[in-house]
């Protein structure tokens, strides 16, 4: 069948520099919009067990917006392989999540990593709404290509700005399931360090900076007084305060891990 042909086409025999593994992997493209020519790239690493289809399907999305789940989710965090320092090869991740689940990394939206669009303006007007709709289309089409996963439990996970992508895709799936002949078996979501609410995230962030002694009392008070976190875009005065906090008070730290040595 066409699905079998596509699946065979997408099967990865081995990646350059890859150690020997016991699981199958697939990668390739799923077209999510024919008219614009938008296609999302995926990488599936099946569960490293005797019967992978007995395990759930876990979709991983990265944030940014604009960052790659192949770069972060797959290669730094939960995937089976880590990259060595010279970019010449791979080694195994002892704590890979594919020991208990099938991991599907999606490069979303079009323009991220290997995902692309034949309409160049798509890269200049991406946003939450289209990303969620494209991801739903991806999941529907992907399950057609891999029908053995159609009855499996599905979970969506991700981090950072995927705090938007993950719930938005879940909402699209829930709406789809209300009218679909073959519903997607979505069971749950899990997000980490996730962008959740503009106002409370911002207030919580500067409170964290203050409570972890990263900024002075004066800067903390000024940020609270001068920034209107209900607005989508900060005022110049507020931006100046943010810059002062980061440039003059934080020091040369890794903001993504405040006690780690910085990456120069």
């Amino acid at each position, binding site marked *: 069948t066409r699905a079998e042909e596509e699946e065979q086409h997408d099967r990865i025999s081995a990646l350059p520099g890859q150690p020997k593994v016991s699981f199958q992997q697939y990668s390739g493209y799923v077209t999510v919009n024919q008219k614009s020519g938008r296609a999302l790239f995926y990488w599936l690493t099946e569960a490293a067990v005797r019967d992978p289809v007995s395990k759930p399907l876990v979709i991983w999305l990265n944030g940014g917006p604009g960052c790659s789940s192949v770069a972060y989710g797959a290669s730094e965090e939960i995937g089976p392989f880590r990259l060595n320092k010279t970019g010449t090869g791979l080694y195994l991740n002892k704590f890979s999540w594919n020991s*208990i689940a099938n991991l599907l990394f999606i490069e979303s939206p079009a323009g991220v990593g290997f995902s692309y669009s034949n309409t160049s303006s798509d890269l200049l007007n*991406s946003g939450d709404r289209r990303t969620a709709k494209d991801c739903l289309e991806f999941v529907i089409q992907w399950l057609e290509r891999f029908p053995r996963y159609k009855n499996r439990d599905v979970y969506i996970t991700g981090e950072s700005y995927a705090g938007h992508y993950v719930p938005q895709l879940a909402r699209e799936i829930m709406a789809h399931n209300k009218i679909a002949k073959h519903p997607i078996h979505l069971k749950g979501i899990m997000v980490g360090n996730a962008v959740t609410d503009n106002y409370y995230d911002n207030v919580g962030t500067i409170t964290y900076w203050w409570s972890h002694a990263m900024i002075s009392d004066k800067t903390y008070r000024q940020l609270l007084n001068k920034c209107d976190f209900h607005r989508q875009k900060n005022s110049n005065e507020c931006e100046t305060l943010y810059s002062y906090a980061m440039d003059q008070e934080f020091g040369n730290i890794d903001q993504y*891990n405040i006690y780690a040595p910085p990456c120069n």
Partner: protein
Amino acid sequence: CTEKYAEIYYNRPDVQKALHANTTKIPYKWTACSETLNRNWNDTEASMLPIYKEMIAGGLRVWVFSGDVDSVVPVTATRFSLERLKLSAKIPWYPWYVKKQVGGWTEVYEGLTFATVRGAGHEVPLFKPRAAFQLFKSFLNGIPLPKS
């Protein structure tokens, strides 16, 4: 610094061939993050909290975790946001354990589980792989994080 290794590896023609990637000769090189997309993001919802309410009402399993040394989307941000959901506690706040060490703190609310990961930065599984894996196991099994 590991993004740098990815920039090298995923731009290799032999890697792209093995991955069946870049088949249409994309006119830009593979990058870990697209500046173009980031700078031109067109629409963003102000809050995900209404969707959280929908997901909880729809019976989905919802877990939220936070590495507690990230200052970009820090644990306080997540707590301030989740507090607005006004969920009642099912299992009160407690430290959870991984390999006999405190992995972080957690609370199981009605419809949502929140957990911190001690010492982890923004990319929790990168900085604390063992703790993140425990979190994932508990999430998939739908059971609270271990108390000892």
